């Protein structure tokens, strides 16, 4: 009798054990025995799609590759996209939807800085492990929120790199042209602090509206100071207007951009005046240009999955960031919890991705994991070249 009941007891015990296990997994949102749901947010439409949709596409091909190799600890990765339209209110709504409605386990995303900065509180409150792939606003990672890490360069890191680069290129008369919207101010303030710390006085400090269609006045004022380097704190649109007008008025300093204009090929097209971008240099978060043979594998994957797209540096932002996320998920182990993933981020030290110019290093006290901007140049009509990598120590 007892013997005949044993298999039933065993079956019951097994069922309870599975049920308990399932309950434990169910308690961790977005995680099942065979899947992990990851949320991503950023602009899918509008001009900001460069920093949203394109990195997301990069993330997706990395996740596909991981899934094709069996997933992480047996779990396949699913990506859920949400459009924040580069807008603060929409970014907060996107986070709420991903966390509460889609029940994602972790987030990777953040395109437009102001939108992501506005969403910081919602992310922090949700205690969801988050990796930022493109937003550069200092306030997103400083002071560090326990659950937010970033593989994007921050404004102050880029600002310091711009000043260092000008000095390395022998500039003696440095000027600046900047936008004074929230994005521009987030860069302008640290730039002024860095210049002050280095004892550098700007020979001109000009302002250009994000909607400007003419920069004649600014160019003439800059030209009058004989500036030999101009630090550009501009989006691509006003930057293109400035470069066009500078060319027209015969003003040819070293023009130093930042990751807001991270694709020199696209920028050359936008400027549309032959030769105008010859002295333009810009920061990239990644070491390689899309045309680099080292990126062949990723080009093929991106262009196959998203027909009609050409590999862009913004895809590479997502690829590098996703590789860091995957590494952290592996380190968090098979008994996955948000706390473990968060702790795993802090253990990433000297980690080399396929795209970043230097090793990625995070810590408990500093969640800015990427501090090695690469400098890009594009000869008119020629290929994009990586000129140098600047490593910021602090």
């Amino acid at each position, binding site marked *: 009798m007892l013997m005949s009941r044993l298999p039933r007891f065993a079956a019951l015990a097994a069922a309870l054990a599975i049920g308990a296990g399932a309950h434990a997994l169910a308690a961790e949102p977005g995680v099942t025995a065979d899947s992990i749901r990851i949320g991503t947010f950023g602009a*899918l*439409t*509008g*001009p*900001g*799609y*460069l920093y949203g*949709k394109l990195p997301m596409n990069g993330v997706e091909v990395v996740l596909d590759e991981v899934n094709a190799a069996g997933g992480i600890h047996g779990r396949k990765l699913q990506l859920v996209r949400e459009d924040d339209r580069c807008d603060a209110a929409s970014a907060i709504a996107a986070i709420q939807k991903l966390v509460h409605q889609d029940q994602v386990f972790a987030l990777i995303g953040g395109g437009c800085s102001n939108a992501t900065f506005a969403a910081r509180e919602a992310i922090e409150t949700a205690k969801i492990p988050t990796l930022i792939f493109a937003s550069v606003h200092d306030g997103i990672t400083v002071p560090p929120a326990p659950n937010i890490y970033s593989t994007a360069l921050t404004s102050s890191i880029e600002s310091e790199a711009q000043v260092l680069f000008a000095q390395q290129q022998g500039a003696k008369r440095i000027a600046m042209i900047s936008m*004074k919207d929230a994005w521009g101010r987030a860069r302008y303030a640290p730039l002024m602090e860095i210049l002050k710390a280095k004892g550098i006085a700007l020979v001109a400090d*000009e*302002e*250009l*509206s994000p*909607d400007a*269609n*003419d920069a*004649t*006045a*600014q160019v*003439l*004022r800059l030209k009058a100071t004989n500036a030999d380097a101009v630090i550009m704190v501009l989006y*691509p*649109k006003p930057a*293109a*207007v400035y470069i*066009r007008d500078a*060319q*027209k*008025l015969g003003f040819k300093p070293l023009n130093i951009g930042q990751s807001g204009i991270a694709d020199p090929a*696209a920028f050359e*097209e*936008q*400027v*549309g*005046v*032959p030769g*105008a971008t010859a002295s333009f240099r810009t920061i990239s978060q990644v070491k390689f240009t899309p045309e680099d043979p080292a990126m062949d594998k990723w080009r093929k994957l991106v262009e196959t999955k998203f027909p009609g797209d050409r590999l862009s540096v913004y895809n590479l932002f997502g690829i590098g960031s996703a590789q860091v996320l995957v590494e952290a998920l592996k380190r968090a182990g098979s008994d996955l919890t948000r706390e473990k993933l968060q702790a795993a981020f802090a253990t990433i030290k000297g980690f080399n991705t396929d795209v970043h110019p230097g090793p990625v290093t995070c810590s408990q006290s500093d969640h800015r994991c990427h501090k090695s901007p690469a400098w890009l140049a594009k000869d008119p009509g020629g290929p994009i070249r990586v000129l140098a990598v600047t490593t910021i120590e602090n």
Partner: protein
Amino acid sequence: MLLFSYLLMSGVTTGALYGLVALGFVVVNKATGVINFAQGEFFMFTGFIAWMLHVQLGINYLVTFAFAVAFGFALGCLTDRIAFRPIAKSDVVSLVLATVGIAFILKGLARTIWGGKADYLAFPPITSPDPIMVGSIMVIPQQLAVLAGTAVILLLFVAFFRFTRAGKMMQATADNARAARLVGIRTDRIYTLAFGIGAAIAAAAAVLTAPLTLLYPDIGFAFFLKGFAAAVLGGLSSLPGAVLGGMIVGIAESMAGGYIHSSVMELSPFIVIMAVLVLRPSGLLGPAKTRRV
């Protein structure tokens, strides 16, 4: 002197474009009494249409110009028929809100069609980018093209009102819509025509502006703001006032940016406008205010 000439040319060119946008406002306002908040989006949308024709399909610039203006006219007429005419007898607030709705629809459409394909679309220059000297004044050929285009549009406009039956009926409707109806003028058709012409002017401004700037779905608002400011400055019902207002806004921006600081560029035209409106509330060329006794 050289600095002054550069700034003046820059201001006049930008001002001419603001004037064209303002002209669109005035045409609709004169006929319907409504401020068309979709004017900036007409500008944006037709600019994208021109980009498709010229850049993607490789159609000649002048042909593109004509197509874009025709498309703008049709878009304006359609706007009147679907958004304005059905509620034409409503109060002014409802009518204005209808134009706001159209603005959002056009922006949404543009984001859907063009927003995910590139961030800022470049329209190639139609002239040589190298400057030329006219006496001691340095001029960019593209600026001359814009000025010439603006002048031609203004002349056509004057001719339309002076020599065509439709233009005269439009003026009659603007002066007194009830009287116009009594003499048999189909004022509803005049309203359609006003929206069509307003959007066609926006299209012309967009195609002239496109080689000087970059196109993106939010570009309409910036031009709406400056064009509206120019229209208010000139007097909301005055066609020459719109152009004069545009010129003043453009030149004020340029001069303030060059001689004071670039940080006051955006502010300067509005300071001028405030000063003018305090002294002359109906605008520079608007009708003098009458007082009933």
